[in-house]
């Protein structure tokens, strides 16, 4: 029976329509064979469009759907679910990626992007004409999760997973847990110290029977797929190192961040004595116990804080805001004032970002007499030595760019977050990174803790700068997502398996030799020896296809007809 197809072209709120003329795309495909409905939509994934698709499928008795929108990694499952809800087998849905592979890739060439989008949609239509109804393959999934990194995010995620009755391997490369949390003093706005929070988490951890804590352990090997990963751990001990394999259904990566280390000479760092970073300042302040605040033999009466060092860089690579550092610097200056009330604080900022409840400590700091100077983005403060003190000069945006000079005994560079310098986990799991070099989620808003690698989630600051509260939020979210991969004990996989045409097959063993999963065996059929492919062990890689001398093997959804119909369209 001839297919009845519905086509939806998404504007993606301008992400596509700013570069691709979506009306032109619609007009170019609306009269294609089998197409009985073609529409443009502002957001194909939006609730209202999903309802329209549901109604269209039912009203027009559609037997296939094509949505041209973002990458299928993002919304293939969304539109398959729409199809299912409307009573259409989800494998009759075909996705055309006209955002990542057209509008964004060719944002410099709108005509080219539009022409390409038209062909991509036509190719998807060609495939949809041939698509068949299928049932998913169900596999067993191990009810266990590896959490890599035992900082605040890893700890919260591990505890959360354990409470959902999953077996958890909490893997930490250091000999202690806590990561950067142990080095934090007052955490705003709750006024709890990092140490206190860590003690609470340690107590929670001890209560969990499902967690195996592995310190001094690094993940050095990875094989398998979602539901059944094998990780090889290198565990260091007093008598050398040993290796151990663990098997898990999902992996949650929470490897944290490093603090930005300024370059020599950056605001006088490593060149002028008493120019230090915020983490160094916190250490010194924590250990200061004399009546006067003394550093490097000098009594400190005034402190200048220079914000956004290593973040929001105009010339450097780190364009991002590190989110936590404004609050951390204001809090540190308040902690200093509590200990030494007579010290004068000067804050040289690019605009204070103590968002949400953290604004309260900014107010408190102002009330305490701290002075805030907002310097221009393109004119960072100039730090020089002057008569035994340090001079900080900057144009103040709030007083018509008038140059203001402060003399301070100590300069604190408010350094931001940078990705973990140990890149081994990213390389091992091939986790995509964004422009900021932190690990990339599939979608910031819609799939914020999933990666393109099935079964691997990310949490905390390995994904980008976050404060403690945000790290905990993302950890709980990633734990819930990893739990969803393993909790049912089984997973639905694509029913993409190979099959052999017994009439043309003359057993030669080539397909069996090529199969890495021993899924192909020789059977007697139609009076001869032929190949038989086991559906439950075939993983759908297709390695058996090109080696067959009689071209007797096809892969579901990637048949010669489907592939060649797409090639023919794209060649036009």
């Amino acid at each position, binding site marked *: 029976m001839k297919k009845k197809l519905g086509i939806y072209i998404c504007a993606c709120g301008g992400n596509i329509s700013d570069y691709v003329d979506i009306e032109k795309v619609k007009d170019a495909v609306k009269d294609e064979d089998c197409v009985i409905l073609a529409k443009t939509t502002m957001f194909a994934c939006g609730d209202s469009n999903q309802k329209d698709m549901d109604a269209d499928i039912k009203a027009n008795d559609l037997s296939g759907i094509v949505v041209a929108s973002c990458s299928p990694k993002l919304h293939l499952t969304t539109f398959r679910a729409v199809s299912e809800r409307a009573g259409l087998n989800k494998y009759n849905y075909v996705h055309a990626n006209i955002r990542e592979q057209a509008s964004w890739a060719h944002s410099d*060439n709108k005509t080219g992007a539009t022409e390409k989008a038209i062909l991509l949609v036509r190719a998807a239509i060609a495939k949809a004409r041939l698509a068949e109804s299928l049932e998913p393959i169900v596999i067993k999934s191990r009810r266990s999760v590896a959490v890599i990194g035992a900082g605040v995010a890893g700890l919260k995620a591990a505890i959360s997973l354990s409470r959902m009755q999953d077996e958890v391997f909490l893997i930490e490369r250091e000999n202690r847990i806590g990561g950067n949390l142990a080095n934090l003093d007052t955490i705003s706005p709750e006024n709890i110290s990092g140490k206190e929070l860590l003690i609470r988490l340690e107590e929670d951890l001890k209560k969990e029977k499902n967690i195996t804590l592995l310190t001094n352990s690094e993940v050095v090997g990875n094989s398998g797929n979602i539901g059944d990963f094998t990780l090889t751990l290198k565990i260091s001990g007093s008598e050398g190192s040993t290796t151990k394999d663990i098997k898990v259904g999902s992996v949650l990566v929470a490897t944290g961040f490093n603090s930005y280390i300024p370059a020599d000479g950056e605001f006088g760092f490593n060149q002028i004595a008493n120019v230090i970073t915020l983490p160094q300042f916190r250490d010194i302040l924590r250990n200061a116990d004399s009546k006067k605040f003394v550093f490097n033999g000098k009594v400190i009466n005034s402190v200048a804080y220079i914000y956004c060092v290593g973040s929001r860089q105009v010339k450097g690579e780190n364009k991002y805001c590190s989110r936590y550092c404004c609050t951390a610097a204001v809090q540190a200056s308040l902690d200093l004032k509590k200990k030494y009330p007579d010290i004068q604080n000067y804050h040289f900022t690019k605009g204070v970002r103590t968002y949400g409840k953290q604004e309260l400590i900014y107010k408190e700091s102002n009330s305490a007499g701290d002075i805030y100077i907002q310097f221009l983005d393109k004119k960072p403060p100039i730090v020089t030595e002057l008569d035994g003190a340090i001079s900080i000069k900057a144009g103040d945006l709030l007083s018509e760019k008038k140059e203001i000079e402060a003399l301070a005994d100590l300069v604190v560079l408010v350094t931001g977050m940078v990705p973990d310098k140990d890149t081994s986990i990213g390389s091992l799991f091939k986790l*995509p*990174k964004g422009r900021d070099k932190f690990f990339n989620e599939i979608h910031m808003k819609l799939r914020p803790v999933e990666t393109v690698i099935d079964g691997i989630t990310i949490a905390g600051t390995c994904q980008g700068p976050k404060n403690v509260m945000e790290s905990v939020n993302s950890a709980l979210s990633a734990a819930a997502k990893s739990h969803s991969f393993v909790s049912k004990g089984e997973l639905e996989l694509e029913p993409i398996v190979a099959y052999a045409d017994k009439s043309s097959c003359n057993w030669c063993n080539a397909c069996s030799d090529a199969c890495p999963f021993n899924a192909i065996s020789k059977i007697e059929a139609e009076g001869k020896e032929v190949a038989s492919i086991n559906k439950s062990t075939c993983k759908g*890689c297709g390695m058996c*296809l*090109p080696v067959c001398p009689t071209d007797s093997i096809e892969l579901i959804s990637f048949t010669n007809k489907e592939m060649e119909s797409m*090639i*023919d369209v*794209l*060649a036009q």
Partner: protein
Amino acid sequence: MDKRSVKILVFSTEKISDPAIDMAGLLKLHYPPQVYTIAVRCSSGIKPRWIMRAFEKGFDGVFIAADGSDCSFGESCTEKTGAIVEKTHIMMKEKGIEPSRLRMAALCSVCSESFVKHVKSFNELLLKPEN
């Protein structure tokens, strides 16, 4: 050859190289729009007849964005994809098609810049009169 008419078909892989090509778009690393991608499960599952079909129908070049050592289906992927290219080169020669019009390179899931570099240089190669 008219510069605008150069067409390249890319066979990417769903889990490894296609995410890299997506990320090239995300990062707005531009490349010629006449580069079209069809994602397959694994680069060692590409049939030579599909590549030949692409040439027959008018593609100027075919680029296999192979899984390489990252292939989740097995370590033999690079070798098997190489064998496909070798087999197809023979078929191309028989049809009088210059073997350099089929190119293969391993691309990992984050090799966006590498992808763009490859397709741009392939595009340049195909623009040369001898191709």
